């Protein structure tokens, strides 16, 4: 490269022109161009360097402080950086904000007309029961009823499994269930469409959300562990959102949410509530079991 020519040329022209001399045009658009060489006074160079390094140092300290404070408290305590409960109030706000932005992106990506991929029976994989609580006592099943609240009629509707199966068409699908932990399973489900239920028992006109709960859930020590979850009605109306009654051709077992569970393949597994006992339609976003524990709210995948 003609570094020498390029360097000497502007010096010769110094008095005649203040415009920097443009180097020769490269042979190709993609070809690397010779570096821009300039000559500066040593003091000036030292001053710039000092200024730039000070700015960089300040920026680096700020970056370390911000990045470090974003780490979870448990991690900082384990590292011995903090003792006791020292939480920066804005930190949760910032992380929550990122979570909400990610939820908004998920909602923007969602389309009621986009179907999730379906599989063949040979692609079915084992589905584990990921609930680490006690499996509920199956005694609740004979008396099980699904209660619908927040309906346009102003009434509360109570259905049993026979009413449900008699009034609605049963749909089958082989879809993937994806867990927030990262594992997934392909299973063959059958049940009624949530959309059909919404048409038969329309919610109040302002309703945008459904609160879906299971009151029969039992915790690790057999204690009541009610599970409640928010679902936007747009997702509830997706044609592949089922109120499932069957798994792999057999009625649901207690481990998988007998007699009726939500199957919503466009959401993470944690939104797929087992053994649903009540659906309440609301205008405001209802509380969510896992959002209260630091997970996201919308969970669209």
């Amino acid at each position, binding site marked *: 490269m003609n*570094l020498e020519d390029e360097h000497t040329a502007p010096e010769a022209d110094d008095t005649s022109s203040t415009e920097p001399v443009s180097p020769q045009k490269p042979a190709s658009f993609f070809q690397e161009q010779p570096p*821009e060489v300039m*000559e500066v006074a040593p003091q000036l160079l030292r001053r710039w360097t000092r200024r730039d*390094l000070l700015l*960089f140092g300040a920026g680096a300290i700020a970056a370390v402080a911000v990045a470090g404070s974003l*780490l979870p408290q448990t991690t900082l305590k384990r590292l011995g950086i903090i003792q006791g409960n020292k939480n920066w109030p804005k930190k949760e706000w910032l992380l929550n904000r990122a*979570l909400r932005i990610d939820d908004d992106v998920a909602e923007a990506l969602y389309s009621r007309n986009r179907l999730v991929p379906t599989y063949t029976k040979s692609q079915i994989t084992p589905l584990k029961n990921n609930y680490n609580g006690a499996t509920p006592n199956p005694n609740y099943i004979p008396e099980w009823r699904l209660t619908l609240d927040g309906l346009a009629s102003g009434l509360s509707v109570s259905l049993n499994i026979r009413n449900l199966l008699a009034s609605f068409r049963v749909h089958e699908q082989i879809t993937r269930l994806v867990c927030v932990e990262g594992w997934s399973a392909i299973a063959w489900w059958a049940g009624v469409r949530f959309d059909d239920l919404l048409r038969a028992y329309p919610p109040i006109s302002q309703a945008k959300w459904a609160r879906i709960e299971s009151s029969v859930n039992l915790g690790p020590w057999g204690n009541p562990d009610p599970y409640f979850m928010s679902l936007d009605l747009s997702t509830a109306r997706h044609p592949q959102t089922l109120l499932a009654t069957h798994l792999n051709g057999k009625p649901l077992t207690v481990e998988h949410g007998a007699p009726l569970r939500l199957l919503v393949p466009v959401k993470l597994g944690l939104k797929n509530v087992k053994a649903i006992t009540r659906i309440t339609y609301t205008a405001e976003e209802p509380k969510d079991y896992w959002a209260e524990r630091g997970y996201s709210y919308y969970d*669209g995948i």
Partner: protein
Amino acid sequence: MENTCANSTQLENERIATLTPGNQAGVRVVRRHHLLVRCSHWLNVPILLSLILSGVSIYWASPVYQHKPDPQTGSFDPLADIGVWICAHVPGLHQYSSPPDWVYNHISLGPGMLAAALRLHWLCAYLFMLNGLVFIIGLVMGGGWRSLLPRRTDLHDATRMFWYYIGVPFAKLTRRVWLHPRFNTKYNALQRLAYFSVPVAALLSILTGWAIHKPMQLHWLTATFGGYDKARIWHFWLMFVFILFVVPHVVLVLADGWDTLRSMIVGWSTRADRSADFSQ
């Protein structure tokens, strides 16, 4: 070269102002990195570190690589097994309270931190994508992208550079002459290979990240990586590209000296003619 750096003309004027009256001996410097490239370079340090720490915590929730549970420890995760091995064999760690967690306690946010890790991972993933845009804008504005493009002779030259680096410590120890391969481009072939591959790996990490984050809405993307489970494996191994890059990158920059490190802070280098450095 049209340099669009905001203070470019100002620099030029200052240069003329300082050079003409006293006619002092000037220092020749050469522009190396555009301001936006430098910013995105340093921002990558906390962002990538947080992505890796939170990513390993997310991996903990459901390790891709599993074996039958060990009858003694109950562990099914090779990473946990490494922790058990370290605690059993490294002096001073025999009393470690939970050996299966050793690896997760040291290269992640800690075990059982899925919710916290996901929050941090999403925040940093968006920042990483924005930072990638800053990097690309800086490359275009400064024209630096041309120096990153692979050349036809790169594979051969990169091999020569690789053996040069391998040989340097031995040559130093035995006080033998060990010639640096000559090149007259901004980067040598091995650097170019590395600085070209890392943005490609970053792009693939972003794509596989979306593929496992939205496997239903973006199922076509998930399918291009062979489905959900394979896309997770891609995403996992791409992390090691960054780790394998960063270690020699830092070692070589420190070995190369202050001028190279400073050029990523201030943007210019006093090594105006690189080929001259290695001509002896």
